[in-house]
């Protein structure tokens, strides 16, 4: 999230789309209701009339998988009716940039952007670049009139998204579309804020990244980023999925969103050169310019004294990807099915139910020699060998089940969706012989380390050179049990030697400071052994360590910031700066400098996140400071001239990207149909699907089939969650109170479809896709309605994905139905829109 849960109360309009917080984040919904009490309007757009819809002022249905069409229509409405926040758009976004004259829009190329190569299924992005001035700076038109400027291209692109065409594609009645557009666009005024709440309803599509991009463009047009009650807010589904992403448990990133090294970058210098954006604009902070400090400090954290300048800080011990190699989820199970893995760790996860196309996942598990499953409860993954259709005698996979402790049986921090890292204490000892996950990791590390130390093997140094100083040591030097505070401190980072304060650049005419007298103490940024105070203090020469730069400050010399329980709320906006700690540097609303005009005056003075006080006197005698939330950097606002900085400090050019040439499937979002759709032809262009997605169609893999516009599977299907269960249900299906409340798989269908199929409420039905079948109880409801798509009537159905065969009598996983198809940029599986059929059983 750019903002945080309590901040919802500050919004004037709340758009819930691709999420259902009343059901899935029920306690946070109170902040939405608080906003309503203060007069805010709530909009809910969803294929189904959800619990969130029931609490909304305005509900609009849409066909699952058509969000870009819906939101593209909103962009068109905002531009045609001049409802955008002009100053914000002109000064804080790349709307004024001129794009290459070779660039062509999908309206001109039958649904494709310029540069497409159908053989490679990818774009040559040369024509997506910006025009340059003689001094290499980007050519701009501040009046936003040039036909090649981003603003005019945006206008041209979305002029195709007329309410009529959008309505035909999405199935949303035209008048509902306009009602939503008008209400949400009302937040384009400086004194109004609109917030966007989304979840997996937006991400789990082959156009997932572009769904969110579309909303980001809307938020930028309306000036809703950086302000209280605004932002683009992912309502994440798991207590620490924010933290597990921050800490780099993914194939493509190290902790702190640092790219995983690739083979074409053999040295830290090459890595830094490639991954450090450059800017000649003196008003751009270009924060990723600090990449070198974060990389070297990470290497010093994991390799300690073994990382030296001479060995390039151990950089080559880090495993590397080939350039372009994809190790993401769908690829793991595709490779596993093809016998490429012998071993597999399923640590706190149940892919046999959570993985799209679960039959493929389950078949893949049977190809393994061995698997380690770590969990609180037995589940469909650990016991896959005795699941439906499996003959245990034929499954050769050895499985080890290691029992883990529950969250309240150990100590540590988790990061919520608003980036708040909160500390948890151990209330009791782990149950039975179960152990905290960190202890299991320690045990495994020590056991494997001992084998390598004794027997040698493939590059033992990769493991042996890791630091592992986390607590009480046995006589042989191994760690008996992990002191989790030591890990938290390693993540925060240390000064590894005395680091002097850097010399401040002198202003013209300023006298240099007096040299230090021999009896005066050196002025230090930090002393050897001290915890680093914040990431601005990290160094690139190996004098600091930091496991995850965005977590630098979380546990410093002032103590464990994540354990704080202060209740002050000085702004009254609910930021609670002394409650726990949030990354980065306790900034509660990111991009907050964009909430002020270039002079530092808040656009909305009644809800000022930050403001510039030119009269504040700093300790060094300088004047001027930001007041309120921790600002995005201490520099004065833009109008201050050379010392001022643009607000979007993580962008090389300091402004937000309405035109986004960094994505694989286009610099503007374009509507494409899901890989399985009721339509044989896209109603908006001749390009049916996202042209840049990877197609899985190995004839040897029987599970990899798609059924587009197939009369056997005429229903648009989607999956979702229920309040009483969580994820695949491993914890909640084993919680008797919850299982009693929500006891088995069901499928929601409209009254019209029920009539057509002769299904009554409570009947047992079989839901089938081209890949699998699921038994469910029919729930005939008015919450689902048939829709008119083009000239045909389309029915939608939906079912929760929290069930699995391991719990007797509840039914099996909804993901047996979903396809192996991934987003063009992230490869997140498309599990929110696929085609199915339904029939009454028996």
């Amino acid at each position, binding site marked *: 999230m750019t903002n945080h849960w309590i901040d919802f109360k500050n919004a004037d309009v709340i758009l819930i789309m691709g999420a259902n917080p009343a059901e*899935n984040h029920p306690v946070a919904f109170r902040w939405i209701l608080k906003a309503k009490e203060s007069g805010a309007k709530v909009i809910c757009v969803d294929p189904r009339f959800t619990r969130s819809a029931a609490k909304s002022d305005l509900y609009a249905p849409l066909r699952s998988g058509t969000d870009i069409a819906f939101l593209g229509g909103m962009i068109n409405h905002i531009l045609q009716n001049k409802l955008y926040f002009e100053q914000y758009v002109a000064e804080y976004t790349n709307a004024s940039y001129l794009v290459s004259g070779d660039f062509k829009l999908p309206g001109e190329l039958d649904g494709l952007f310029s540069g497409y190569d159908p053989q490679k299924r990818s774009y040559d992005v040369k024509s997506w670049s910006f025009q340059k001035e003689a001094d290499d700076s980007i050519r701009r038109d501040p009046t936003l009139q040039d036909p090649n400027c981003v603003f005019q291209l945006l206008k041209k692109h979305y002029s195709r998204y007329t309410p009529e065409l959008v309505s035909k594609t999405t199935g949303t009645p035209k008048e509902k579309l306009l009602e939503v557009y008008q209400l949400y666009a009302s937040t384009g005024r400086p004194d109004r804020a609109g917030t966007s709440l989304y979840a997996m309803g937006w991400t789990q599509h082959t156009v997932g990244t572009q769904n969110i991009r579309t909303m980001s463009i809307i938020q930028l047009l309306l000036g809703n980023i950086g302000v209280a009650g605004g932002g683009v807010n992912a309502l994440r589904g*798991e*207590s*620490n*999925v924010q*933290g*597990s992403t921050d800490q780099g*448990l993914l*194939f493509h990133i190290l902790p702190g969103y640092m790219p995983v090294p690739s*083979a*074409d970058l053999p040295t830290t210098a090459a890595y830094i050169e490639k991954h450090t954006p450059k800017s000649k604009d003196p008003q751009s902070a270009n924060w990723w310019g600090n990449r070198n400090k974060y990389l070297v400090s990470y290497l010093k954290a994991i390799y300690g004294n073994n990382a030296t300048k001479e060995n390039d800080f151990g950089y080559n011990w880090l*495993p590397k*990807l080939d350039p372009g190699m994809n190790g993401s*989820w769908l690829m*793991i199970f595709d*490779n596993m099915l093809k016998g490429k893995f*012998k071993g*597999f*760790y399923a*640590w*706190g*996860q149940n892919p046999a139910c959570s993985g799209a196309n679960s039959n493929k996942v389950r078949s893949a598990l049977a190809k393994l020699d*061995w698997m380690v499953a770590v969990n609180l*409860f*037995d589940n469909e993954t650990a016991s896959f*060998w005795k699941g439906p259709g499996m003959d245990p005698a034929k499954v050769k*996979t*050895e*499985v*080890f*089940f290691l029992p883990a402790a*529950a*969250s*309240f049986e150990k100590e*540590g921090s*988790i*990061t*919520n*969706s608003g980036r708040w890292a909160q500390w948890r204490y*151990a209330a*009791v000892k782990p*149950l039975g*012989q179960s152990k905290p996950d960190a202890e299991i990791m320690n045990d*495994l590390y020590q*056991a*494997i380390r001992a084998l390598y130390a004794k027997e040698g093997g493939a*590059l033992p140094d990769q*493991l042996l050179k890791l630091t592992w100083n986390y607590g009480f040591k046995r006589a042989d030097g191994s760690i008996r049990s992990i002191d989790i505070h030591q*890990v*938290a401190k390693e993540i925060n980072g240390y000064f590894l030697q005395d680091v002097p304060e850097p010399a401040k650049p002198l202003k013209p005419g300023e006298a240099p400071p007096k040299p230090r007298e021999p009896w005066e103490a050196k002025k230090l940024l930090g002393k050897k052994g001290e915890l680093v105070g914040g990431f601005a203090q990290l160094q690139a020469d190996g004098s600091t360590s930091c*496991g995850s730069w965005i977590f630098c400050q979380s546990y410093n010399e002032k103590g464990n910031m994540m354990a704080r*329980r202060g209740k002050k*709320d000085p702004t009254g906006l609910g930021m*609670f700066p002394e409650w726990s700690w949030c990354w980065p540097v306790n900034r509660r609303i990111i991009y907050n400098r964009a909430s002020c005009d270039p002079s530092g005056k808040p656009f909305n003075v009644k809800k000022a996140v930050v403001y510039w006080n030119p009269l504040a006197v700093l300790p060094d005698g300088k004047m001027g400071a930001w007041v309120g939330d921790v600002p995005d950097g201490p520099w004065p606002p833009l109008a201050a001239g050379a010392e001022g900085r643009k607000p979007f400090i993580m962008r090389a050019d300091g402004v937000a990207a309405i035109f986004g040439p960094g994505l694989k499937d286009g610099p503007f979002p374009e509507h494409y149909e899901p890989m399985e759709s009721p339509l044989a032809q896209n109603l908006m262009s001749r390009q049916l699907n996202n042209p840049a997605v990877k197609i899985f169609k190995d004839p040897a893999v029987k599970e990899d089939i798609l059924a587009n516009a197939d009369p056997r599977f005429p229903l648009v299907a989607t999956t979702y969650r229920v*309040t009483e*269960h969580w994820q695949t249900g491993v914890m909640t299906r*084993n*919680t008797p*109170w*919850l299982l009693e409340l929500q006891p088995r798989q069901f499928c929601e269908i409209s009254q019209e479809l029920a009539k057509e199929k002769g299904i009554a409420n409570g009947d047992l039905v079989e839901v089938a896709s081209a890949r699998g079948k699921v038994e469910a109880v029919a729930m005939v409801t008015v919450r689902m309605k048939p829709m008119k798509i083009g000239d045909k009537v389309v029915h939608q159905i939906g079912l929760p994905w929290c069930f699995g065969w391991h719990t007797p009598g509840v039914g099996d996983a909804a993901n047996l139905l979903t396809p192996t198809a991934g987003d063009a940029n992230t490869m997140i599986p498309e599990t929110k829109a696929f085609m199915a059929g339904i029939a009454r059983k028996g």
Partner: protein
Amino acid sequence: MEVSRRNFLKISGVGVAATTLGLNLDPVEAKAQELAIQHAKETTTICPYCSVGCGMIVHTQGDNVINVEGDPDHPINEGALCPKGSSVYQLRDNKARITKPMYRAAGAAAWQEVTWEWALDQIARKTKATRDASFVPTSKIKVKEKVAGVEVEKEIEAEVNRTMGIASVGSAALDNEECYLYQKFLRGLGLVYIEHQARI
């Protein structure tokens, strides 16, 4: 002193008791039932389910969790919990929890209980054997190079030091420190196939 809501309740509770005593000096026969949590230890925690991050108080007596409820001082949930949060107590008082390591041999039809020592030794040996057998020190890749001002593509043998035969998934259910430790451990084994819930 800052008075938190919980402290306030405690203080006012004492106040009410004192007032009652002041007004009524008759011997009191009927005693209110003691609260089950009166002598319990309180530990604060954060809910393990969705990402709202609701504060909770876990009441324990010895090794038993006797109650879990919302933390009224927590600024997000202000004491409220949803059905999942309210049932966290049952994650402890639960017969389905696995409390001993288990092993399933190739072709076996059932789990068997094993010791930690044996399981860890077996996993360590298998991890090492698979790593050693599938470790790739170098890989042939294509790079672009400028030769006399002209960009040419050439194939090189680049150092990659990765383990191709093992993959890992998980987990957003771990604490931050555990996630960090796990990625460090996995990268120390040379794994590149590292994924978890965030991708799906």
